[in-house]
C-alpha cells in the first residue's frame, strides 16, 4: 500500500491533473464495489417494478393475445375459435386488396410526415433561437391544443372546412366560389398535419435548442454561406430531432382512423379503417389480428432501419 501511495505521490509531481485525496480516502476493494453495484441494481429493479408490471400487463400480454388470435380461425357466426391453428390470415395479407390499401396508407403517412417536417422545422428553429422567456411562451402555445380532446378538435375542423364553413365564407366574401374541402383527401391531410404537428415540433425544438452554435459560427468564419452552414452543420446536428419527430408522426398517421373517417368521409379504405372493419363488421378477429401484427412488425423494422440510417448521418 505504502509503495503504491509513494508511486502515486511521485506521479503527482509530474502531473497535477489527478486529485490524490479521493483515491486515498476511499480504499476500494473489488468485492465491496461489486456489492455496491448489486445493491444499486436491486434498487433499480425495485423502482422499475411498477413500470415492468405495467408494460407486461398492458403491452406485452395484449400483444401476445393478438399474436395468438392471428393464428386462430373464424367460426361461421364470427366467433374466434382457438383451435384449427393456421396461417391463412397471414396468407391473405399478400392479396391485391391489402397491398393496395397498405400502399395508399403508406403514401398518406409519408406525405403527412414530410408536410409536418417542412412546416415544423422553421417553426422549431424560430422557437429555439428566441430568448428563454419567449421560448417558454411559444412552447406552451404549441402544447395548448393537447388540453382539449382530439376528437372534439377534429370535429371543429369539420365546421371550419364545411361548405358553409369559415374557409368557404372567406372565399365567397371575396367573390370566389363555394369551397368544398371537407370530405376530400386535402381535408384528411390538413387534419393529420394539424393533429401531429406538435409531435414534430417538440423533438425538433429539443434538438435545435441544444445545438452548439459556436460550430455554426465556425462554419461562417470559414466562409460557408448561410445555406451551406445550415446544410453542413445545423441540419446534421439536428438530425436526431428529425428522426424522432418523423417516427412520432409517421406511425400514428399510418394507422389513422378518426381523421379520415370524420374529415375524409371514409371515402378511401385505409389501413386503420380496414382493420376496424375486420373486428366490427366482418367479425374476423384472426385476420384483424394478423393485419395489426403485420403493421406493427413492419413499423418496427422501419423504425430500426430509420434509426440506424439516422445514426449514420450524425
Amino acid at each position, binding site marked *: 500500500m505504502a509503495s503504491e501511495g509513494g508511486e502515486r505521490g511521485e506521479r503527482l509531481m509530474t502531473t497535477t491533473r489527478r486529485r490524490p485525496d479521493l483515491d486515498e480516502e476511499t480504499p476500494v476493494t473489488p468485492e465491496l464495489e461489486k456489492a455496491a453495484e448489486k445493491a444499486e441494481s436491486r434498487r433499480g429493479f425495485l423502482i422499475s417494478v411498477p413500470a*415492468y408490471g405495467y408494460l407486461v400487463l398492458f403491452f406485452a400480454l395484449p400483444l401476445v393475445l393478438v399474436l395468438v388470435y392471428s393464428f386462430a380461425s373464424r367460426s361461421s357466426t364470427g366467433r374466434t375459435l382457438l383451435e384449427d391453428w393456421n396461417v391463412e390470415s397471414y396468407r391473405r395479407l399478400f392479396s391485391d386488396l391489402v397491398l393496395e390499401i397498405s400502399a395508399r396508407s403508406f403514401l398518406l403517412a409519408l406525405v403527412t410526415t414530410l408536410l409536418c417536417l417542412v412546416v415544423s422545422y422553421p417553426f422549431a428553429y424560430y422557437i429555439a433561437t428566441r430568448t428563454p422567456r419567449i421560448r417558454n411562451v411559444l412552447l406552451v402555445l404549441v402544447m395548448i391544443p393537447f388540453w382539449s380532446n382530439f376528437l372534439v378538435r377534429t370535429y371543429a375542423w369539420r365546421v371550419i372546412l364545411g361548405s358553409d364553413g369559415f374557409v368557404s365564407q372567406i372565399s365567397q366574401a371575396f367573390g370566389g366560389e363555394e369551397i368544398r374541402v371537407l370530405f376530400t383527401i386535402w381535408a384528411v391531410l390538413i387534419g393529420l398535419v394539424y393533429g401531429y404537428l406538435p409531435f414534430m415540433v417538440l423533438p425538433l425544438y429539443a434538438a435545435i435548442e441544444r445545438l452548439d452554435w459556436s460550430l455554426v459560427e465556425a462554419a461562417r468564419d470559414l466562409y460557408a454561406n448561410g445555406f451551406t452552414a445550415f446544410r453542413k452543420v445545423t441540419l446534421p446536428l439536428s438530425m436526431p430531432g428529425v428522426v424522432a419527430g418523423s417516427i412520432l408522426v409517421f406511425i400514428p398517421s399510418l394507422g389513422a382512423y378518426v381523421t379520415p373517417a370524420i374529415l375524409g368521409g371514409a371515402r378511401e379504405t385505409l389501413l386503420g379503417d380496414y382493420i376496424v372493419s375486420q373486428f366490427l363488421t366482418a367479425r374476423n378477429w384472426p385476420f384483424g389480428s394478423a393485419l395489426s401484427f403485420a403493421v406493427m412488425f413492419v413499423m418496427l423494422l422501419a423504425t430500426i432501419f430509420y434509426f440506424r440510417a439516422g445514426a449514420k448521418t450524425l
Partner: protein
Amino acid sequence: MQRLTRLVALIAVIAMVLAACGSDEGGGDPGTTVPDTSDEMVACEADEVDGDLNFYNWTEYIDPELIAQFEAEYGVDVVEDFYDSNEAMLAKLQSGAVYDLIVPSDYMVAIMIEEGLLAGVQKDAVPNISNLDPFFADPAYDPGGVYSVAYQWGTTGLGIDMSVVGEDFEPSWALVFDPDLVSQYAGGISLLNDPRETMGAALKYLGYSLNSTSEEELQEAADLIAAVKEYIRAFDSDNFDETLVTGEFAVTHGYSGGYFTAIDDTEEGWDRFTYVIPEEGGTVWIDNMAVPTTSEHPCTAHTFMNFLLDAENGAALTNWNFYASPNAAAEEFIDPEILEDGTIYPSDELSERLEIITDTGDFEINYTDYFAIARS
C-alpha cells in the same frame, strides 16, 4: 440471482393476470351450449323486480320520460349504457360486460342465440306479450320468439334535400346509383359506412336479394358503387341526418328514425327535406329486447319488457323516436300522422320488396372485402 428474481416476478405477474382472465371467462363466457332457461335463471313473475336494471341500448332510442316513469312505478334505478352498432355490443358482451337487457337487431339475435349468449324470454312474466302483432311473434331469426321480444322496427332508405333534387323525383336507388342523376346534385351524396347496408342497397338496385351469396352479384354491386364514387362525398353511418339538414349533402343513405327527428328540428322542415324508401325495396330491420345469460336482475328485465309492451307505453316510444312499433295494441295511441306515414309504416305492396338482413356466415368476409374494393 438478479435475473432469477426478475423472472420470478414476471412469472408471478403473468400468473396473476392469467388467473384473473380465467375467472373472468368462467363468469362471462357461457360456453357453446344453448342455455336451458329454466335451469339457469330464476323464474320470474309478472311485475317482479329483483334490483336495478342495467340497460344496454342504442343511442337516442328511448324516451327518457318512459325510463323515469318505470323507475317511479317500480322503485328501481335504470342504469343506461349505449352502443351504436350490434357488433360493438356483441364484442362488449363477449368480453364479459354484464347487462340485464340489450336491444340486438334481427341477425344479431340469431348470432347471439347460436353463441349461447341469450337467456330465454319467460313469457309468463311478460303478459303484455299478447299485444305483439302476430307478425313479430314468430320471426325467422328467432322461431317462436323464444329468446327475444320485438322492440321497434324501421327501414333503411334515402334522405332527400328537395331544394337540390327537386320536388319531382322517383323514389328509387337510382338517386344514388345512376351516374347521370347523381352528377347533377351540387353537394353530392353520402352512403352508409356499412358493408351489408350499402352493398345491400346496390344489390337491390340491380334486382338481387340483399342477402345474396353470389360473388358475381357482389362484384356487380361493387362496380356500381365504384362507378358513382366520385359523387359519393362520404361513407358515413353516424351523421347522415345532420349532413342532410345542414345542406352539406343532397342525398344521404340512412335509417328512417334518425331523419324524422332531424327534419322536424329544421326551419324548412318537410317542405325542403324528406325520407323515402326506394321502390326497388331495401332493408327492413327489427330491433329486439333480450336478456343476456349473464343478467343479474332478470326479473326487473322482464318487468321492463312488459312495461314497454303496454299499449300506451309502446305508443309513447314510437311517438318519441318515430320508429314503427311491433305493438298492435299500441296503434290506437300512436299519432295518426305517424301511422299514415308511408315511410314509417310502408304500404303492403312495398313491404313485400323489403328484406331483413340475415347473417351469411363466412360470406360476411366477402361483403367487407367487396365494400373495400368498391371504395378503392
